[in-house]
Protein backbone atom coordinates (compact mmCIF):
# COMPACT_ATOMS: atom_id res chain seq x y z
CA UNK A 1 0.00 0.00 0.00
CA UNK A 2 2.67 2.52 1.09
CA UNK A 3 4.97 1.42 -1.73
CA UNK A 4 2.16 1.82 -4.24
CA UNK A 5 1.31 5.34 -3.04
CA UNK A 6 4.92 6.48 -3.06
CA UNK A 7 5.55 4.86 -6.46
CA UNK A 8 2.61 6.77 -7.91
CA UNK A 9 3.89 10.04 -6.41
CA UNK A 10 7.34 9.30 -7.84
CA UNK A 11 5.82 8.67 -11.26
CA UNK A 12 3.87 11.96 -11.10
CA UNK A 13 6.99 13.83 -10.00
CA UNK A 14 9.03 12.33 -12.84
CA UNK A 15 6.39 13.34 -15.38
CA UNK A 16 6.83 16.94 -14.14
CA UNK A 17 10.61 16.83 -14.08
CA UNK A 18 11.85 19.56 -16.42
CA UNK A 19 14.93 17.65 -17.47
CA UNK A 20 12.85 14.61 -18.40
CA UNK A 21 10.38 16.77 -20.34
CA UNK A 22 13.30 18.31 -22.23
CA UNK A 23 14.71 14.85 -22.82
CA UNK A 24 11.40 13.67 -24.32
CA UNK A 25 11.12 16.77 -26.50
CA UNK A 26 14.62 16.27 -27.94
CA UNK A 27 13.89 12.62 -28.47
CA UNK A 28 10.66 13.26 -30.39
CA UNK A 29 12.47 15.80 -32.58
CA UNK A 30 15.17 13.23 -33.39
CA UNK A 31 12.54 10.62 -34.25
CA UNK A 32 10.68 13.00 -36.53
CA UNK A 33 13.97 13.87 -38.17
CA UNK A 34 14.64 10.16 -38.79
CA UNK A 35 11.33 9.69 -40.59
CA UNK A 36 12.70 11.56 -43.58
CA UNK A 37 15.20 8.83 -44.65
CA UNK A 38 12.40 6.30 -44.18
CA UNK A 39 10.15 8.13 -46.63
CA UNK A 40 13.02 8.70 -49.06
CA UNK A 41 13.94 4.98 -48.94
CA UNK A 42 10.34 4.05 -49.62
CA UNK A 43 10.04 6.25 -52.70
CA UNK A 44 13.46 5.17 -54.04
CA UNK A 45 12.76 1.43 -53.73
CA UNK A 46 9.17 1.44 -54.92
CA UNK A 47 10.15 -0.74 -57.91
CA UNK A 48 12.10 -3.25 -55.84
CA UNK A 49 10.12 -4.44 -52.76
CA UNK A 50 12.84 -6.87 -51.54
CA UNK A 51 15.50 -4.15 -51.49
CA UNK A 52 12.95 -1.89 -49.83
CA UNK A 53 12.33 -4.35 -47.02
CA UNK A 54 16.07 -4.67 -46.39
CA UNK A 55 16.34 -0.93 -46.01
CA UNK A 56 13.28 -0.90 -43.77
CA UNK A 57 14.86 -3.44 -41.41
CA UNK A 58 18.08 -1.47 -41.31
CA UNK A 59 16.38 1.84 -40.59
CA UNK A 60 13.97 0.43 -38.03
CA UNK A 61 16.85 -1.34 -36.27
CA UNK A 62 18.73 1.97 -36.17
CA UNK A 63 15.70 3.76 -34.74
CA UNK A 64 15.13 0.98 -32.22
CA UNK A 65 18.76 1.17 -31.11
CA UNK A 66 18.46 4.93 -30.73
CA UNK A 67 15.21 4.61 -28.81
CA UNK A 68 16.72 1.89 -26.66
CA UNK A 69 19.80 4.02 -25.91
CA UNK A 70 17.59 6.98 -24.97
CA UNK A 71 15.60 4.65 -22.75
CA UNK A 72 18.73 3.54 -20.92
CA UNK A 73 19.71 7.16 -20.29
CA UNK A 74 16.19 7.94 -19.14
CA UNK A 75 15.99 4.95 -16.78
CA UNK A 76 19.36 5.67 -15.18
CA UNK A 77 18.80 9.40 -14.82
CA UNK A 78 15.22 9.09 -13.54
CA UNK A 79 16.23 6.56 -10.91
CA UNK A 80 19.22 8.58 -9.71
CA UNK A 81 17.19 11.78 -9.67
CA UNK A 82 14.14 10.22 -7.98
CA UNK A 83 16.19 9.41 -4.89
CA UNK A 84 18.68 12.31 -4.99
CA UNK A 85 16.08 15.06 -5.49
CA UNK A 86 14.13 13.87 -2.43
CA UNK A 87 17.29 14.07 -0.36
CA UNK A 88 18.27 17.44 -1.81
CA UNK A 89 14.89 19.09 -1.29
CA UNK A 90 14.27 17.42 2.07
CA UNK A 91 10.93 15.81 1.13
CA UNK A 92 12.44 12.49 2.24
CA UNK A 93 12.36 13.69 5.87
CA UNK A 94 8.59 14.10 5.92
CA UNK A 95 8.12 10.74 4.17
CA UNK A 96 10.53 8.75 6.32
CA UNK A 97 9.12 10.31 9.50
CA UNK A 98 6.09 8.15 8.67
CA UNK A 99 6.10 4.43 9.38
CA UNK A 100 7.88 3.70 6.11
CA UNK A 101 11.00 1.55 6.07
CA UNK A 102 14.00 2.73 4.11
CA UNK A 103 13.93 -0.22 1.74
CA UNK A 104 10.24 0.45 1.11
CA UNK A 105 11.13 4.00 0.14
CA UNK A 106 13.79 2.80 -2.32
CA UNK A 107 11.53 0.13 -3.76
CA UNK A 108 8.77 2.70 -4.28
CA UNK A 109 11.22 4.94 -6.14
CA UNK A 110 12.22 1.98 -8.30
CA UNK A 111 8.57 1.11 -9.06
CA UNK A 112 7.86 4.76 -9.93
CA UNK A 113 10.74 4.76 -12.41
CA UNK A 114 9.49 1.49 -13.93
CA UNK A 115 6.05 3.09 -14.38
CA UNK A 116 7.68 5.90 -16.33
CA UNK A 117 9.67 3.39 -18.37
CA UNK A 118 6.49 1.41 -19.13
CA UNK A 119 5.02 4.55 -20.67
CA UNK A 120 8.25 5.06 -22.60
CA UNK A 121 8.30 1.45 -23.89
CA UNK A 122 4.68 1.69 -25.04
CA UNK A 123 5.62 4.91 -26.80
CA UNK A 124 8.61 3.12 -28.34
CA UNK A 125 6.35 0.27 -29.46
CA UNK A 126 4.00 2.72 -31.14
CA UNK A 127 6.91 4.52 -32.85
CA UNK A 128 8.37 1.24 -34.18
CA UNK A 129 5.03 0.27 -35.67
CA UNK A 130 4.50 3.74 -37.07
CA UNK A 131 7.90 3.68 -38.77
CA UNK A 132 7.21 0.23 -40.19
CA UNK A 133 3.85 1.48 -41.44
CA UNK A 134 5.43 4.50 -43.09
CA UNK A 135 7.91 2.15 -44.72
CA UNK A 136 5.01 0.04 -46.03
CA UNK A 137 5.77 -2.99 -43.85
CA UNK A 138 4.21 -4.56 -40.80
CA UNK A 139 6.21 -5.57 -37.73
CA UNK A 140 5.81 -9.22 -36.96
CA UNK A 141 6.60 -9.90 -33.39
CA UNK A 142 5.05 -10.75 -30.07
CA UNK A 143 4.09 -7.47 -28.41
CA UNK A 144 5.12 -8.86 -25.02
CA UNK A 145 8.69 -9.33 -26.25
CA UNK A 146 8.81 -5.70 -27.33
CA UNK A 147 7.50 -4.71 -23.89
CA UNK A 148 9.09 -7.10 -21.42
CA UNK A 149 12.65 -7.19 -22.76
CA UNK A 150 13.22 -3.42 -22.67
CA UNK A 151 11.49 -3.19 -19.30
CA UNK A 152 13.86 -5.76 -17.81
CA UNK A 153 16.82 -3.99 -19.38
CA UNK A 154 15.75 -0.59 -18.05
CA UNK A 155 15.03 -2.22 -14.73
CA UNK A 156 18.72 -3.14 -14.46
CA UNK A 157 19.83 0.40 -15.31
CA UNK A 158 17.39 1.88 -12.78
CA UNK A 159 18.36 -0.54 -10.00
CA UNK A 160 22.07 0.06 -10.60
CA UNK A 161 21.53 3.84 -10.54
CA UNK A 162 19.51 3.63 -7.32
CA UNK A 163 22.25 1.63 -5.65
CA UNK A 164 24.98 4.04 -6.77
CA UNK A 165 23.01 7.14 -5.76
CA UNK A 166 22.83 5.84 -2.20
CA UNK A 167 26.63 6.11 -2.22
CA UNK A 168 27.44 9.17 -4.31
CA UNK A 169 26.27 12.27 -6.14
CA UNK A 170 23.62 11.50 -8.80
CA UNK A 171 25.78 12.77 -11.66
CA UNK A 172 28.57 10.35 -10.74
CA UNK A 173 26.02 7.56 -10.32
CA UNK A 174 24.55 8.31 -13.74
CA UNK A 175 28.00 8.42 -15.35
CA UNK A 176 29.01 5.09 -13.81
CA UNK A 177 25.81 3.42 -15.03
CA UNK A 178 26.47 4.69 -18.53
CA UNK A 179 30.09 3.52 -18.43
CA UNK A 180 28.94 0.11 -17.17
CA UNK A 181 26.41 -0.10 -20.01
CA UNK A 182 29.01 0.73 -22.65
CA UNK A 183 31.56 -1.62 -21.06
CA UNK A 184 28.98 -4.44 -20.99
CA UNK A 185 28.44 -4.05 -24.72
CA UNK A 186 32.19 -3.93 -25.41
CA UNK A 187 32.88 -7.18 -23.55
CA UNK A 188 29.93 -9.05 -25.10
CA UNK A 189 31.06 -12.18 -27.03
CA UNK A 190 29.79 -10.69 -30.31
CA UNK A 191 31.89 -7.54 -29.86
CA UNK A 192 35.57 -7.05 -30.66
CA UNK A 193 35.72 -3.61 -29.10
CA UNK A 194 37.57 -4.73 -25.97
CA UNK A 195 39.94 -7.25 -27.54
CA UNK A 196 42.89 -5.36 -26.04
CA UNK A 197 41.84 -6.36 -22.52
CA UNK A 198 43.57 -9.35 -20.89
CA UNK A 199 41.33 -12.44 -21.08
CA UNK A 200 40.79 -12.62 -17.29
CA UNK A 201 39.55 -9.02 -17.20
CA UNK A 202 37.47 -9.44 -20.34
CA UNK A 203 35.67 -12.51 -19.06
CA UNK A 204 35.46 -11.07 -15.53
CA UNK A 205 33.71 -7.95 -16.81
CA UNK A 206 31.46 -10.04 -19.04
CA UNK A 207 30.21 -12.05 -16.06
CA UNK A 208 29.98 -9.05 -13.74
CA UNK A 209 28.30 -6.47 -15.94
CA UNK A 210 24.72 -6.88 -17.14
CA UNK A 211 24.64 -8.19 -20.68
CA UNK A 212 22.40 -5.77 -22.51
CA UNK A 213 22.77 -7.53 -25.86
CA UNK A 214 21.22 -10.65 -24.32
CA UNK A 215 18.25 -8.55 -23.26
CA UNK A 216 17.82 -6.70 -26.54
CA UNK A 217 14.40 -7.05 -28.08
CA UNK A 218 15.94 -6.39 -31.52
CA UNK A 219 17.12 -10.02 -31.36
CA UNK A 220 13.52 -10.91 -32.02
CA UNK A 221 12.56 -8.11 -34.37
CA UNK A 222 11.39 -9.14 -37.84
CA UNK A 223 9.55 -7.40 -40.59
CA UNK A 224 8.09 -10.42 -42.33
CA UNK A 225 6.70 -13.65 -41.03
CA UNK A 226 9.26 -15.58 -43.05
CA UNK A 227 12.20 -14.07 -41.17
CA UNK A 228 10.69 -14.44 -37.72
CA UNK A 229 12.74 -16.86 -35.70
CA UNK A 230 10.89 -19.14 -33.38
CA UNK A 231 12.43 -18.76 -29.93
CA UNK A 232 11.84 -21.46 -27.32
CA UNK A 233 10.25 -20.13 -24.10
CA UNK A 234 13.18 -21.49 -22.09
CA UNK A 235 15.47 -19.05 -23.89
CA UNK A 236 13.16 -16.16 -23.04
CA UNK A 237 12.94 -17.34 -19.46
CA UNK A 238 16.71 -17.63 -19.06
CA UNK A 239 17.33 -14.16 -20.49
CA UNK A 240 14.64 -12.52 -18.38
CA UNK A 241 15.59 -14.29 -15.15
CA UNK A 242 19.18 -13.21 -15.76
CA UNK A 243 18.03 -9.58 -16.08
CA UNK A 244 15.74 -9.72 -13.06
CA UNK A 245 18.50 -11.28 -11.01
CA UNK A 246 20.84 -8.39 -11.87
CA UNK A 247 18.16 -5.89 -10.79
CA UNK A 248 17.46 -7.75 -7.57
CA UNK A 249 21.13 -7.83 -6.60
CA UNK A 250 21.43 -4.07 -7.22
CA UNK A 251 18.29 -3.34 -5.21
CA UNK A 252 19.47 -5.48 -2.30
CA UNK A 253 22.82 -3.66 -2.36
CA UNK A 254 20.95 -0.33 -2.43
CA UNK A 255 18.82 -1.34 0.56
CA UNK A 256 21.96 -2.38 2.43
CA UNK A 257 23.92 0.82 1.79
CA UNK A 258 20.88 3.06 2.42
CA UNK A 259 20.12 1.34 5.73
CA UNK A 260 22.64 3.45 7.70
CA UNK A 261 22.90 6.44 5.38
CA UNK A 262 22.49 9.86 7.00
CA UNK A 263 19.51 11.66 5.48
CA UNK A 264 20.40 15.20 6.41
CA UNK A 265 23.38 17.20 5.26
CA UNK A 266 26.26 16.39 7.53
Amino acid at each position, binding site marked *: *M*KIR*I*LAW*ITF*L*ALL*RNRLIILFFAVFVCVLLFMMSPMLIARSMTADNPEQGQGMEIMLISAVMSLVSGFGSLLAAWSAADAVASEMK*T*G*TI*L*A*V*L*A*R*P*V*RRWEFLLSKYCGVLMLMAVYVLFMFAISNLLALIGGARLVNNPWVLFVYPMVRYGIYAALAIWLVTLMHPIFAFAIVMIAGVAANLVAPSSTGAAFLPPWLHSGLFYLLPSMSLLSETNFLAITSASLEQTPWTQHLTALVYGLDQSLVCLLLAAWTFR*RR*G*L*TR*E
Partner: protein
Amino acid sequence: MTAAIEFGGVTKVYKRIFSEERVEALTDISFTVSAGEVCGFLGPNGAGKTTSIAILMGFLFPDSGAVRVLDFPPGDIRAKAQIGFLPENFAFYRFLTGPQLLSLHLRLSGRSIPDPAALIAGLLAQVNLAGYESLRIARYSRGMVQRLGIAQSLIGDPQLVVFDEPTSGLDPAGRKEVLDLVHSLKEAGKTVFLSSHILPEVEQICDRVVIINRGRLVRAGRLDEILHTGARVEIAVDQLSEEAERAALEHGAQIDRGPHGIRLLVDAARKRELIETLWAAGCDVVRLNPVKDTLEEVFLNLVGGAR
Protein backbone atom coordinates in the same frame (compact mmCIF):
# COMPACT_ATOMS: atom_id res chain seq x y z
CA MET B 1 5.52 8.66 34.39
CA THR B 2 7.06 6.82 31.43
CA ALA B 3 9.69 8.46 29.27
CA ALA B 4 8.71 9.51 25.75
CA ILE B 5 12.26 10.49 24.79
CA GLU B 6 15.50 9.29 26.35
CA PHE B 7 18.95 10.47 25.27
CA GLY B 8 21.75 8.67 27.09
CA GLY B 9 25.32 9.87 26.51
CA VAL B 10 24.78 10.61 22.83
CA THR B 11 27.82 11.68 20.84
CA LYS B 12 27.84 12.45 17.15
CA VAL B 13 30.94 13.31 15.16
CA TYR B 14 30.83 14.43 11.55
CA LYS B 15 33.78 13.19 9.54
CA ARG B 16 34.71 13.97 5.97
CA ILE B 17 35.73 11.17 3.67
CA PHE B 18 39.43 11.38 2.69
CA SER B 19 40.00 14.05 5.32
CA GLU B 20 41.12 14.24 8.92
CA GLU B 21 38.58 16.98 9.61
CA ARG B 22 36.19 16.12 12.45
CA VAL B 23 33.36 18.17 13.87
CA GLU B 24 31.94 17.03 17.17
CA ALA B 25 28.29 17.99 16.75
CA LEU B 26 27.07 16.40 20.00
CA THR B 27 29.08 15.37 23.05
CA ASP B 28 27.62 13.13 25.71
CA ILE B 29 24.08 14.53 25.59
CA SER B 30 21.69 13.01 28.14
CA PHE B 31 18.15 14.05 28.99
CA THR B 32 14.69 12.60 29.39
CA VAL B 33 11.27 13.89 28.41
CA SER B 34 8.32 12.29 30.18
CA ALA B 35 5.12 11.34 28.40
CA GLY B 36 2.58 14.18 28.38
CA GLU B 37 5.17 16.94 28.82
CA VAL B 38 5.85 19.90 26.56
CA CYS B 39 9.63 20.20 26.28
CA GLY B 40 11.47 23.14 24.73
CA PHE B 41 14.75 22.30 23.06
CA LEU B 42 16.91 25.41 23.07
CA GLY B 43 20.31 26.45 21.88
CA PRO B 44 21.97 29.05 19.69
CA ASN B 45 22.51 28.42 15.97
CA GLY B 46 24.90 25.53 15.40
CA ALA B 47 24.39 24.17 18.92
CA GLY B 48 23.37 20.74 17.62
CA LYS B 49 19.58 20.95 17.89
CA THR B 50 18.84 19.80 14.34
CA THR B 51 21.40 16.98 14.64
CA SER B 52 19.73 15.84 17.87
CA ILE B 53 16.30 15.91 16.25
CA ALA B 54 17.65 14.01 13.21
CA ILE B 55 18.99 11.33 15.58
CA LEU B 56 15.69 11.26 17.44
CA MET B 57 13.83 10.67 14.16
CA GLY B 58 16.30 8.03 12.92
CA PHE B 59 17.67 10.18 10.07
CA LEU B 60 21.18 10.17 11.55
CA PHE B 61 22.93 7.65 13.75
CA PRO B 62 24.93 8.52 16.89
CA ASP B 63 28.56 7.42 17.18
CA SER B 64 27.96 6.43 20.78
CA GLY B 65 25.19 6.54 23.35
CA ALA B 66 21.64 5.31 23.28
CA VAL B 67 18.36 6.90 22.24
CA ARG B 68 14.85 5.59 22.88
CA VAL B 69 11.69 7.12 21.48
CA LEU B 70 8.38 5.90 22.92
CA ASP B 71 10.35 2.91 24.16
CA PHE B 72 11.61 1.96 20.70
CA PRO B 73 14.90 2.67 18.96
CA PRO B 74 14.77 5.74 16.66
CA GLY B 75 13.56 4.92 13.15
CA ASP B 76 11.55 1.92 14.31
CA ILE B 77 8.26 1.99 12.43
CA ARG B 78 6.31 1.20 15.62
CA ALA B 79 7.65 4.45 17.08
CA LYS B 80 7.20 6.39 13.83
CA ALA B 81 3.54 5.35 13.69
CA GLN B 82 3.03 7.40 16.88
CA ILE B 83 5.15 10.43 15.95
CA GLY B 84 4.15 13.61 14.13
CA PHE B 85 7.15 15.50 12.79
CA LEU B 86 7.59 18.99 11.41
CA PRO B 87 11.10 19.49 9.96
CA GLU B 88 12.80 22.88 10.17
CA ASN B 89 12.43 23.59 6.46
CA PHE B 90 9.41 21.56 5.58
CA ALA B 91 9.51 20.54 1.89
CA PHE B 92 7.10 18.40 -0.05
CA TYR B 93 5.76 17.54 -3.45
CA ARG B 94 5.00 20.96 -4.85
CA PHE B 95 2.64 19.70 -7.55
CA LEU B 96 0.12 18.43 -4.98
CA THR B 97 -2.60 20.49 -3.34
CA GLY B 98 -2.90 20.74 0.46
CA PRO B 99 -5.66 18.11 0.76
CA GLN B 100 -3.75 15.76 -1.58
CA LEU B 101 -0.63 16.06 0.56
CA LEU B 102 -2.57 15.44 3.76
CA SER B 103 -4.29 12.46 2.16
CA LEU B 104 -0.87 11.06 1.16
CA HIS B 105 0.45 11.47 4.71
CA LEU B 106 -2.71 10.01 6.21
CA ARG B 107 -2.29 6.88 4.10
CA LEU B 108 1.43 6.68 4.90
CA SER B 109 0.67 7.02 8.61
CA GLY B 110 -1.42 3.86 8.43
CA ARG B 111 -4.23 5.51 10.40
CA SER B 112 -7.59 4.13 9.44
CA ILE B 113 -10.60 6.42 9.88
CA PRO B 114 -14.10 6.29 8.41
CA ASP B 115 -14.14 9.81 6.94
CA PRO B 116 -10.67 10.97 5.86
CA ALA B 117 -12.08 13.93 3.90
CA ALA B 118 -13.69 15.37 7.04
CA LEU B 119 -10.47 14.94 9.03
CA ILE B 120 -8.46 16.70 6.32
CA ALA B 121 -10.98 19.53 6.04
CA GLY B 122 -10.93 19.92 9.83
CA LEU B 123 -7.14 20.08 9.99
CA LEU B 124 -6.98 22.59 7.15
CA ALA B 125 -9.50 24.75 8.98
CA GLN B 126 -7.51 24.38 12.21
CA VAL B 127 -4.38 25.79 10.54
CA ASN B 128 -6.34 28.46 8.65
CA LEU B 129 -5.88 26.93 5.21
CA ALA B 130 -9.58 26.41 4.49
CA GLY B 131 -10.48 27.98 1.16
CA TYR B 132 -7.14 27.10 -0.47
CA GLU B 133 -8.01 23.46 -1.18
CA SER B 134 -7.44 23.69 -4.94
CA LEU B 135 -4.22 25.70 -4.76
CA ARG B 136 -1.03 23.81 -5.55
CA ILE B 137 1.63 23.88 -2.84
CA ALA B 138 4.08 25.44 -5.32
CA ARG B 139 1.98 28.62 -5.04
CA TYR B 140 1.81 28.66 -1.24
CA SER B 141 3.52 31.42 0.75
CA ARG B 142 6.17 30.51 3.35
CA GLY B 143 3.64 30.85 6.17
CA MET B 144 1.09 28.66 4.37
CA VAL B 145 3.72 25.97 3.84
CA GLN B 146 4.50 26.07 7.56
CA ARG B 147 0.82 25.78 8.45
CA LEU B 148 0.43 22.83 6.10
CA GLY B 149 3.50 21.24 7.66
CA ILE B 150 1.89 21.55 11.08
CA ALA B 151 -1.32 19.98 9.75
CA GLN B 152 0.59 17.04 8.22
CA SER B 153 2.39 16.44 11.52
CA LEU B 154 -0.96 15.99 13.27
CA ILE B 155 -2.73 13.89 10.65
CA GLY B 156 -1.75 10.54 12.16
CA ASP B 157 -3.07 11.42 15.67
CA PRO B 158 0.46 11.15 17.12
CA GLN B 159 1.35 10.54 20.75
CA LEU B 160 4.61 12.46 20.35
CA VAL B 161 4.87 15.63 18.26
CA VAL B 162 8.33 16.84 17.26
CA PHE B 163 8.36 20.43 16.02
CA ASP B 164 11.57 21.96 14.68
CA GLU B 165 11.00 25.74 14.67
CA PRO B 166 7.19 25.54 14.33
CA THR B 167 6.63 29.31 14.32
CA SER B 168 9.24 30.06 11.68
CA GLY B 169 7.72 32.07 8.83
CA LEU B 170 4.50 32.81 10.72
CA ASP B 171 3.11 36.24 11.56
CA PRO B 172 2.26 37.10 15.22
CA ALA B 173 -1.31 35.80 14.82
CA GLY B 174 0.01 32.56 13.30
CA ARG B 175 2.49 32.19 16.15
CA LYS B 176 -0.28 32.58 18.68
CA GLU B 177 -2.31 29.91 16.90
CA VAL B 178 0.65 27.54 17.12
CA LEU B 179 0.98 28.22 20.84
CA ASP B 180 -2.73 27.55 21.29
CA LEU B 181 -2.32 24.35 19.31
CA VAL B 182 0.54 23.19 21.54
CA HIS B 183 -1.65 23.97 24.57
CA SER B 184 -4.46 21.86 23.13
CA LEU B 185 -2.02 19.01 22.40
CA LYS B 186 -0.83 19.16 25.99
CA GLU B 187 -4.40 19.07 27.25
CA ALA B 188 -5.01 16.01 25.08
CA GLY B 189 -2.12 14.28 26.85
CA LYS B 190 0.33 14.38 23.93
CA THR B 191 4.05 14.83 24.38
CA VAL B 192 5.47 17.80 22.48
CA PHE B 193 9.19 18.28 21.82
CA LEU B 194 9.85 21.61 20.19
CA SER B 195 12.89 23.50 19.15
CA SER B 196 12.53 27.26 18.96
CA HIS B 197 14.51 30.47 19.14
CA ILE B 198 11.58 32.48 20.43
CA LEU B 199 12.12 32.08 24.14
CA PRO B 200 9.07 33.97 25.49
CA GLU B 201 6.91 31.50 23.54
CA VAL B 202 8.77 28.53 24.94
CA GLU B 203 8.40 29.98 28.43
CA GLN B 204 4.65 30.27 27.96
CA ILE B 205 4.03 26.69 26.92
CA CYS B 206 6.81 24.40 28.14
CA ASP B 207 6.94 22.23 31.25
CA ARG B 208 10.57 21.34 30.71
CA VAL B 209 13.51 22.78 28.81
CA VAL B 210 16.71 21.29 27.49
CA ILE B 211 19.43 23.81 26.64
CA ILE B 212 22.46 22.82 24.59
CA ASN B 213 25.40 24.83 23.35
CA ARG B 214 28.24 23.76 21.07
CA GLY B 215 27.00 20.20 21.18
CA ARG B 216 27.04 19.97 24.97
CA LEU B 217 24.16 19.88 27.41
CA VAL B 218 24.08 23.12 29.39
CA ARG B 219 20.92 22.65 31.40
CA ALA B 220 17.92 20.32 31.47
CA GLY B 221 15.05 20.33 33.88
CA ARG B 222 11.58 21.52 34.72
CA LEU B 223 11.00 25.14 33.77
CA ASP B 224 9.81 26.19 37.24
CA GLU B 225 13.03 24.84 38.76
CA ILE B 226 15.16 26.63 36.20
CA LEU B 227 13.53 30.02 36.53
CA HIS B 228 14.36 30.49 40.28
CA THR B 229 11.12 32.14 41.34
CA GLY B 230 11.58 34.19 44.51
CA ALA B 231 15.34 34.61 44.48
CA ARG B 232 14.99 38.38 44.08
CA VAL B 233 12.30 40.96 44.81
CA GLU B 234 11.26 44.17 43.16
CA ILE B 235 10.51 47.15 45.43
CA ALA B 236 8.70 50.11 43.88
CA VAL B 237 8.98 53.44 45.72
CA ASP B 238 7.35 56.85 45.15
CA GLN B 239 10.61 58.78 45.51
CA LEU B 240 14.25 58.13 46.25
CA SER B 241 16.35 60.64 48.12
CA GLU B 242 20.14 60.73 47.71
CA GLU B 243 20.57 59.25 51.15
CA ALA B 244 18.13 56.40 50.37
CA GLU B 245 19.81 55.74 47.04
CA ARG B 246 23.21 55.43 48.72
CA ALA B 247 21.74 53.06 51.28
CA ALA B 248 20.07 50.97 48.60
CA LEU B 249 23.31 50.61 46.70
CA GLU B 250 25.03 49.57 49.90
CA HIS B 251 22.42 46.79 50.19
CA GLY B 252 23.35 45.56 46.71
CA ALA B 253 20.16 46.82 45.07
CA GLN B 254 19.84 47.59 41.37
CA ILE B 255 18.01 50.87 40.73
CA ASP B 256 15.83 51.31 37.68
CA ARG B 257 14.26 54.74 37.04
CA GLY B 258 11.68 54.10 34.33
CA PRO B 259 8.61 55.95 33.06
CA HIS B 260 6.43 53.96 35.46
CA GLY B 261 8.38 54.89 38.58
CA ILE B 262 11.43 53.86 40.54
CA ARG B 263 12.17 50.15 40.98
CA LEU B 264 14.80 48.58 43.17
CA LEU B 265 15.84 44.97 42.61
CA VAL B 266 17.40 43.24 45.58
CA ASP B 267 18.07 39.73 46.88
CA ALA B 268 15.03 38.36 48.70
CA ALA B 269 17.13 37.75 51.81
CA ARG B 270 17.91 41.48 52.16
CA LYS B 271 14.47 42.90 51.38
CA ARG B 272 13.37 43.56 54.99
CA GLU B 273 16.65 45.34 55.79
CA LEU B 274 16.36 47.56 52.67
CA ILE B 275 12.68 48.37 53.21
CA GLU B 276 13.40 49.51 56.78
CA THR B 277 16.25 51.70 55.52
CA LEU B 278 13.97 53.21 52.83
CA TRP B 279 11.26 53.94 55.39
CA ALA B 280 13.80 55.51 57.70
CA ALA B 281 14.90 57.75 54.80
CA GLY B 282 11.29 58.87 54.24
CA CYS B 283 10.50 56.83 51.13
CA ASP B 284 7.11 55.16 50.72
CA VAL B 285 7.10 51.58 49.38
CA VAL B 286 4.21 51.35 46.94
CA ARG B 287 4.74 47.78 45.69
CA LEU B 288 6.70 44.66 46.58
CA ASN B 289 6.83 41.73 44.16
CA PRO B 290 8.92 38.58 43.87
CA VAL B 291 11.00 38.65 40.66
CA LYS B 292 10.96 35.64 38.38
CA ASP B 293 13.88 35.29 35.96
CA THR B 294 12.76 35.06 32.37
CA LEU B 295 13.84 32.13 30.26
CA GLU B 296 15.63 34.57 28.00
CA GLU B 297 17.75 35.81 30.95
CA VAL B 298 18.52 32.27 32.06
CA PHE B 299 19.34 31.25 28.51
CA LEU B 300 21.64 34.20 27.94
CA ASN B 301 23.36 33.60 31.27
CA LEU B 302 23.96 29.96 30.40
CA VAL B 303 24.79 30.31 26.74
CA GLY B 304 25.80 33.92 26.22
CA GLY B 305 29.10 33.68 28.06
CA ALA B 306 30.03 30.41 26.43
CA ARG B 307 29.49 31.57 22.85
